[in-house]
Structures are given as C-alpha cells and as structure tokens.
C-alpha cells in the first residue's frame, strides 16, 4: 500500500457519532432475557411431531418475526437479538435446568454478572422450564452419559453439554453474494430434485429459516422508516432503504455489505446461541464492496464510521454461560474473530485499505470485540506490522498475532487442502479454521495432563478427594527409572483419552438429534450440496478439537522429578511424594529446591522444553487415532483461555513446586507465571520447541510488556523485529498484554506471580519484583507520567 494512504487512514479521528453510540451502549445495564425462550417454547409446543430440523427452523422463524427490535437514533448499522444491548439470552433448547438453578445468582456471581427481573424468573419457571425438563440438550446429555462424564471430570472437561457448539466461520462471502433471498431460491431448487425425505426436510428447514431472515430485515426497515418519519434523521432513512433492499437482493455498497454481514451474525446467534461465530477474513471479502463505494465517492471517514458502527455491534451480543463455564471462559467472550492481513491464495501480501481501517477502528474503540487477529507471514509489510504494534501498545491486547508460516503447515498436515489452508481464519479466541466450510468442534474437551500425572504418581488416587479415579500403576517409589514413570504416564493418558472420546461422541450425537442448525448449514459448504445439516457431518471439514493442559507444568514437573529424584538422586521419591501429599507442609525447603534447583520451561533450556514437547506430541498422536461422530479426525489445541484457574483447582501440589489448587500456567504454551526469567527471547525459543505442526486446533501464548516499550518509533521498530522473529521461529500465535498501573500494583502484592516482569534499562535489566518498594513506585509513577 502507498504510504500516503496509510498516513491518511491513521490520521482519521474517532467519529463523534461513534463516541455517542459507545457511551449509550456501555451505560445501559445488562439483563438476562427470556423473550426468545418464550417464543421458542411456544413454537415447539405447536410443532410436536414434525422433524427436528423443521421444528428448529420454525422456532427461529418465529423469533425473527416476533422478537422486539430497537434502533438507536444514531445508528447506521442496525440489528440485535434482544431489545436491550448486551442481553444474556436464556436458551432453553440447550439448557434450562442450570438456568433454574442459577437464575437468582446471575447478578451476584463472581464472573459475568447479569441483572434479572423477577417477572422473568416467574414466567421462566411457570411457562418455559416445565416444557424443557428432560427435553433440553443439557438434560438429554446428562441422561445419556452423565455418570461417564462425571467419572473423568477432574481430568477431562467435556464441553457443549448445555450449549451449542460455535467456533464456526461461515461462508459470509456466499451470504453476501446471494442474500437470504438467493439462498432461499437455491434451497427451493435443490428440494425439487432431492431424492430422500431427510434431504427434503433439510432444504425445507433452510427455506423456513431464510424466510424468517428476510422478514427480520423487513421489520428493521419498517422500524427505521417510522423512526425517520418521526425524527427526520437521514441515517434512519438510509437504513430503511438498505434493509428493504437486503431482504430482496444482495448488497452492492460497503454500507450494504456491512449491514448484511451484521444481520448474518445476529441471526446465527439467534439460531445457535453459540460461543462464537466468527467473520474471519473480513478485510478480504468486504474489499470489493469497499472498492465499489470508494469509486462511487465514499470518503475514508465514512468507511471508518461504518466500520466502527459494526465494531460497536460486535460488543452488543454477549454470551450467557453457567457459572462454572464462566470461570473457564471468563468475560462472556462471544468471539467475533476478525482476521486481517495474511496472504492471498498464491502467497502474495493480502493486506489492503480495510486491514488498516480495521486497526484504526480498534485503536479508537479499545473494546473487547471484535477479537481482532492479525495474520503475519515472512513477507508482511513493515507498515502493517508497525501500525499493529502501535495498536497493541495501546493495551487492549489486540490485535493478537497469528503466524501463517506455522499455521498453514499445521492445517495442511491435518488434511486441509493448500487453498483452504492459505485462506484460514480464526474462530472464538485462538482456534484455527478453514473459511466457510468447517465444523471444527474446536472445544470438544480439555484434558488435564498434570492431573493425569498426579494420578500416575499416586496409585491412581486423587490427592484432593482420596478417591481412586485413575489407573493404579503404582506410585513414584515403584517406578525404578524415569522411563518406567513415563510409560505409566502414557498408559494413564491413554485411559482418559479413550473415555473422553466416548463422552464427546455421545455429546455430538445429542447435538445431531436435538440441535440441527439449518440457517448455519446454509452458509457452510458442503451442506447445501449434500442436503445435510452441519451437525450430521454436512461440512466439508469435520474436526473435533481437544486441548492438552498444560505444557509448562508437565515440563517443569517431569524435569524436577527426572533431575532431583532419578538423575542426581538428591531427593528420595518417598520424600517428594510426602511433600506433594501434604502440600509441602513441613518441607518448605524441598519446595524451594523444586522451584530453584531445576531449570524451568520458558528459559531456553532444551532438555526441559523437550519434556513438554514430548508429552503434548504424545497426546496429539493419541488423539489422531480416534474418529469423531461426524467422521472427521481429532486434533490437538494448546490453549486454556481462563481455564488454567479452575483446572488448577482440580490438581493437588505438583513437582514443579506449584501448591495444591493453585492455577496452572496461563494461556496455553506460556511458561508458568514468573518462572521464565531469561527474558522474552528465551521464552520464545522455548515455546518454539513445542510441536506447533501438531497443534492445528490452535495455540495461545501470552506475553506481558510495559507500555514504555511502545512509546517511541525505535521501540515500535524493535517490537516489529520481535514479531518477525516469532514468525521465523514458527510459533503459531502470540498476544501481548501491555501492563497498566493496576497490573504493577498486583505485582507488588503477589511478587511470585510476576517474577519475570522486567524493567529494561541501558546496561542491564532489573526484575520489577526484586526492586525496593520506593523504586517500584518510581516505575509506576514513570508509567503514569509517560501515559499522560
């Protein structure tokens, strides 16, 4: 791109309209709502006896026709699934029992709070809950496989038991090209020639869904028109015109395409209420519309304002999870993941005006959504990296960075075609996907390898409950060599993997029976061609993803046992076992030794890192032996989002010196907090030893930086050098937390967790936590000064 154009884009201010809309949005309270639940329940009651996919389509159609809608007079992009913004949608098809149990606690629970209305609770218990008792996904899964899920729960967390599977990147390009009317026509044609009733039902369900979609757009057109008549505001008139058009025809302008895109995601959420539907490479497929409009005279200011209107919209849908799930996935993430940059199919730089406009929008709004992802490759333009670095330095944690050089080979080695791999996108937080043709079931389960190691060290007995939940293969004193311990550990992993796959298969089956998603299936290839819903395996790619938890703790624990117990024989196995069983009570010196006398993952110490690599590799290979319910393969991910905290609560003291129930390492491939003391380059060299080619489900690396680093042009250039090295090292993903004052205060309170936090100065580096309190204050003050 031309430097002048980049300069023009990065000079654009945040539009006044956006400030107003943002203010309105964040000041509105967030409520749990049962409106859709009651529409859907009535629809189900009226459709007894019909095929499930038809019933679901009818329920969606009813919701699209009846749900209350609202337009803020300032809006230029409209649409929501609730009348209020950021509503927590009760979705009884997937889970009603947990809502019943937790409804009253929603305003006060520790994570992801929602306001409630007493009349909603009453109506829910009177009219909705009784119908779904025993019928919801949650209850059916419990009936089918509850005891099996519970039996392995401390080692394996099975997901999607009470909500839909999301983490899907639909074919937005197709949606834009055809519009709901075009897809409807296509479905009618295909229904004519369908040779099986099942297929005819599928097409019928698509037709019903698309009829609902058209009606939804028309309702917005009507509302906008009437508001225009009351207020005379031109943006409302334009909205009325655009919504009317989109109900009938595909979009042509940037404004129309953005509005159309947003309708798609609102309706997907109304149908699925899933943790994430991701737009993917929006800078690519919206570009032709942008170009069209620019040629017709759209200004850069206008393009940015429309983009930021959409950015605000991404924040108006949040996800209501049960309290346990909210701990694992805190911050009601709904994962509108937008990928920018990357390469074209033939390997050229794909960045364009929109890539830069999207970064500029992020830098103005600094909101949690969209989850903005930058794809980099060895030839990424320096200007793009520099702007991205500046936005990262503003501290919203975005854009996160994905590395084409690592991701594309990983996908290809798991059966993805070269063309689809080059066009990959990200869904949810960090999960990898192809564009528009996959149901990757990215969060099938998480397997806690550290818990499996605990069971292996102690006769299969859970050290927190005393129950025997794993295989009894002996204890540490029985394993004569480190290799014997490793072979027992492998058996334990196999044991839990087998059971996990049985549970996941049962859950998938329930989704197929209860939750066909015709609207979604219409925008996932090859469902329409095959006449098959995504839940039945209609997608071109059918993966299931399982996360290995957690490389750092496994590497550190095994390294400590190997070095101190087996190699140096400094600690008798019995002493270590006793210390772990008693959470180091009475043997603080042993814990100090575990922490300090053995090198840790994250410091560029080959043999330690290789232990982590070996076991995630082992697990990945094991996974690849199974097939999922839709006929696809399992693939491994290395990420936890916030699950390192609850997963840590399940594990007793470990040989890495971690105390009982303390969190595990965060992120996925990060070092245990505070233990990567050789600086960021050493951490990255360690991380690079993990088998990223095996981790095709996605990985997560968190790094922390002080804001000073981003405050000069030299700093920005150095940061870009770091990004380019990450690219060369073949690390799939990295995201950066830029610390603020609150973080530094936290480091003062809990120094052990922040031991790696360094303050870099000429000549040497100081560790923040080792500085005297007055010097720490100086750093904090300097930060405040420099940000002013």
């Amino acid at each position, binding site marked *: 791109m031309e430097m002048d154009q980049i300069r023009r884009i990065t000079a654009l201010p945040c539009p006044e309209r956006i400030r107003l809309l943002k203010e309105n949005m964040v000041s509105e309270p967030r409520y749990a709502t049962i409106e859709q639940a009651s529409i859907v329940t009535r629809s189900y009651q009226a459709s007894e006896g019909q095929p499930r996919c038809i019933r679901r389509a009818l329920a969606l159609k009813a919701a699209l026709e009846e749900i209350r809608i609202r337009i803020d007079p300032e809006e230029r992009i409209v649409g929501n699934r609730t009348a209020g913004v950021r509503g927590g949608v009760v979705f009884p098809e997937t889970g009603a029992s947990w809502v019943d149990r937790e409804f009253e606690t929603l305003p006060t629970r520790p994570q992801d709070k929602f306001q409630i209305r007493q009349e909603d609770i009453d109506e829910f218990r009177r009219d909705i809950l009784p119908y779904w008792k025993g019928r919801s996904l949650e209850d059916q899964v419990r009936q089918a496989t509850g005891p099996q899920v519970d039996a392995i729960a401390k080692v394996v967390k099975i997901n999607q038991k009470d909500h839909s599977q999301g983490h899907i990147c639909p074919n937005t390009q197709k949606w834009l090209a055809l519009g709901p009317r075009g897809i409807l026509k296509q479905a009618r044609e295909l229904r004519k020639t369908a040779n099986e009733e099942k297929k005819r039902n599928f097409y019928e369900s698509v037709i019903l869904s698309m009829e609902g979609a058209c009606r939804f757009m028309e309702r917005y057109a009507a509302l906008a028109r009437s508001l225009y008549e009351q207020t005379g505001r031109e943006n409302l008139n334009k909205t009325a015109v655009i919504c009317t058009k989109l109900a009938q025809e595909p979009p042509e302008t940037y404004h129309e395409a953005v509005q159309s895109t947003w309708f798609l995601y609102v309706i997907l959420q109304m149908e699925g209420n899933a943790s994430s539907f991701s737009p993917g490479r929006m800078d690519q497929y919206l570009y032709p519309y942008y170009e069209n409009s620019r040629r017709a005279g759209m200004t850069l200011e206008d393009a940015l304002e429309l983009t930021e209107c959409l950015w605000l919209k991404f924040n108006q849908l949040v996800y209501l999870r049960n309290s346990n799930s909210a701990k694992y996935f805190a911050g009601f993430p709904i994962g509108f993941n937008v990928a920018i940059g990357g390469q074209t199919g033939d390997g050229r730089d794909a960045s364009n005006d929109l890539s830069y406009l999207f970064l500029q929008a992020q830098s103005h709004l600094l909101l949690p959504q969209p989850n903005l992802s930058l794809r980099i490759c060895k030839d990424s333009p320096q200007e793009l990296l520099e702007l991205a670095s500046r936005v990262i330095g503003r501290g919203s944690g975005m854009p996160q960075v994905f590395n084409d050089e690592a991701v594309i080979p990983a996908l290809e080695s798991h059966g993805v075609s070269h063309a689809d791999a080059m066009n990959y996108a990200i869904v949810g937080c960090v999960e990898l996907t192809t564009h528009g043709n996959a149901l990757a079931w990215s969060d099938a389960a998480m397997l806690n390898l550290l818990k499996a190691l605990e069971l292996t060290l102690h006769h299969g007995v859970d050290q927190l409950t005393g129950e025997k939940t794993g295989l009894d293969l002996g204890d540490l004193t029985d394993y004569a060599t480190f290799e014997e311990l490793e072979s027992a550990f492998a058996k334990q992993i196999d044991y839990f993997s087998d059971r996990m796959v049985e549970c996941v298969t049962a859950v998938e089956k329930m989704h197929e029976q209860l939750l066909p998603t015709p609207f979604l299936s219409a925008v996932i290839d090859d469902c329409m061609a095959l006449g098959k819903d995504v839940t039945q395996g209609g997608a071109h790619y059918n993966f299931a993803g399982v996360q290995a938890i957690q490389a750092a703790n496994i590497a550190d624990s095994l390294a400590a046992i190997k070095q101190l117990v087996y190699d140096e024989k400094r600690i008798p196995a019995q002493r270590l076992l006793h210390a772990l069983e008693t959470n180091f009570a009475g043997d603080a010196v042993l814990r100090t030794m575990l922490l300090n006398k053995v090198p840790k993952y994250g410091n560029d110490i080959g043999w330690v890192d290789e232990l982590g690599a070996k076991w995630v590799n082992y697990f990945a290979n094991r996974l690849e032996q199974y097939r999922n319910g839709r006929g696809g393969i399992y693939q491994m991910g290395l990420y936890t989002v916030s699950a390192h905290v609850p997963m840590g609560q399940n594990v007793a003291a470990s040989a890495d010196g971690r105390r009982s129930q303390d969190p595990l390492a965060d992120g996925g491939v990060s070092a245990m907090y505070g233990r990567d003391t050789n600086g960021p380059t050493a951490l990255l*060299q360690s991380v690079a030893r993990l088998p990223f080619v095996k981790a095709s489900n996605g990985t997560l690396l968190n790094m922390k930086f002080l804001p000073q680093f981003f405050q000069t042009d030299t700093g920005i250039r150095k940061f870009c050098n770091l990004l380019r090295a990450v690219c060369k090292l073949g690390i799939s993903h990295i995201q950066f937390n830029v610390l603020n004052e609150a973080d530094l205060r936290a480091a003062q309170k809990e120094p052990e967790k922040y031991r790696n936090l360094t303050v870099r100065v000429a000549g040497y580096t100081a560790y923040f936590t080792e500085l005297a309190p007055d010097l720490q204050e100086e750093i904090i003050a300097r930060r405040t000064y420099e940000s002013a």
Partner: protein
Amino acid sequence: MNGIIFDVKRFAVHDGEGLRSTLFLKGCPLRCPWCQNPEGIGPAPALWYNPAVCVGCGGCVGVCPAGALTLNGRVHADRTACTLCGKCVDLCPSGALSLCGRTVSAQAAAELLLRDRVFFGADGGVTLSGGEVLLQWEFSAEVLALCRAAGVRTAIETSMMGPRAAFEALLPVTDQFLTDIKIFNAEEHRRLLGADNRLILDNYRFLHQQGASVLTRTPLIPGYTDSEDNIRSIARFARSVNPDASYELLNFNPLCRSKYSALERDYPVQGGALTHRELERFYDILAQEGIVHIIKE
C-alpha cells in the same frame, strides 16, 4: 582463549540498535561512584548473595569448608576466607547464593550470544559491555570476530579506558562503538573516577581518525555529571573531533540501588531520574553546541 564474564542479557533494547544480546565482562579500571553494575567491577569471580530470596535454612554455613559463612538474619560472607569452591551455591535451595563471574571460552561466549540470532534482524546484533571490555580485549576481539563470521553485527560499550592496542584489535571486528565520556574536567575525573581522562579522550580521537562508527554517550548522574558545564564541554569536544557526532544522554536510573543493598553498601547517588523538562534543557544545550544528531529516549 578464555575470558571472565558475569552475565549475558538477552533481548537488550538499549545497548545499540535493534534487538541485541549483551555480554558483560568482569573487571573495570574506573571507580564511578554511581556504577550500575558494581558486581562487575572486580576482575575475579566473587560470591554473590541475594537476601531477598534467601529462606534462611543455614545449609550453606554448614557446608562451607572454609568456614567463611555466618547466618545472622542474613548470610554474611567473609570474602577473604571464601575460596569460591561453590559448595554453598550448589546446596543453596533458593538460589540466594550464586557465583558472580565465570570463565568461558570465546567460542562458548559467542554461542551464548548467537542463540538469539533469529531476533537480531537487519539492525540488531551483539554488544559487549561490562565492567570494561578493554580489560579483556583479546578475548573480546575473538568473541566479536566469531559473531562477525556468523554474519551478525557487533558493538561494544566502553569507557575507552584502555590501551591503543585494544582498539587496534577491536576496530576490524566492531560495527559500532558506544563510547562514554562521563566527566570532561580532568581534575574532577581523576577525583571522582580514580583515573585520568586523557587516555579516554585520546582514544576517542583515535576511533574517529580510524573512521569508526561512534555513538558518544554521557550518563546523567545527579550531582556528578549533570552540570550544564560538563555537558557543554563534552559536546564541544565531541564536535571538535567530529562535526557530525551522534550524542546520546542516558537518563539516570536508580534501580541499581537494590544491588548495593544486597552488597550491604550504601549507594551514594541521591534522587531519581531526570524529568522530561530537565532532559529537554540538556538537549537544548547540545543543540546550542551544534550537535545535530541527538539521540533521545
């Protein structure tokens, strides 16, 4: 050949251009009262103790064959009795005791520095620092030559307090010299730093005569170097040697006080970093003296 080093700092972002790895060499001929790396002044390895992480188990006292250690709230070491055998360091569960300084071959030092090669890019590289690089110039030249041979850019940070022969050896293998002129007044220099600065200024001229790439630096130390007169004189001198001189003022950083408390020594410098406004005043002085290339924070 072998050298004695006391640290390798990876991801160094202030020791030259780009991202660098910096090797710290033991031993320094100067005695700057504000020294940021007091552990690097002595030429030989020494026992280093960090009371902040010590758990007070006392194991070290029992294991010391020389009886050099005592425990009294913290560990005290009789450095004259200590033979640097390392037994206490090996035993110490917390890492509070360590040996500062170790002997490595030039080959091993270069390998340490080159580990992060992937990060160096076009502008980064390796930097030798100290202590004073010139005290071990033969070793330094060998390390830098190895890095150069690997295609990596090289720099040294030096007080220039060393023999001409050192520069002759280093010039062919060094891409950039980061040279400190701390105090211009000869008498002041002798009084505060324990040595004459004539050699420093001569070497500075020599580097320019040889066409070396030189960045002139002065650390701004409150009460020591931060007088208008001092900065003006250095700037004037630098410009007289090279009208096109690049000059960087390093703001004072008080963080090293923690090291002094670990050594049970008082840190003589009062006060903190200079404010933005104070820095600006010095930048103005440099500009008045005709310095065109002022490297700012």
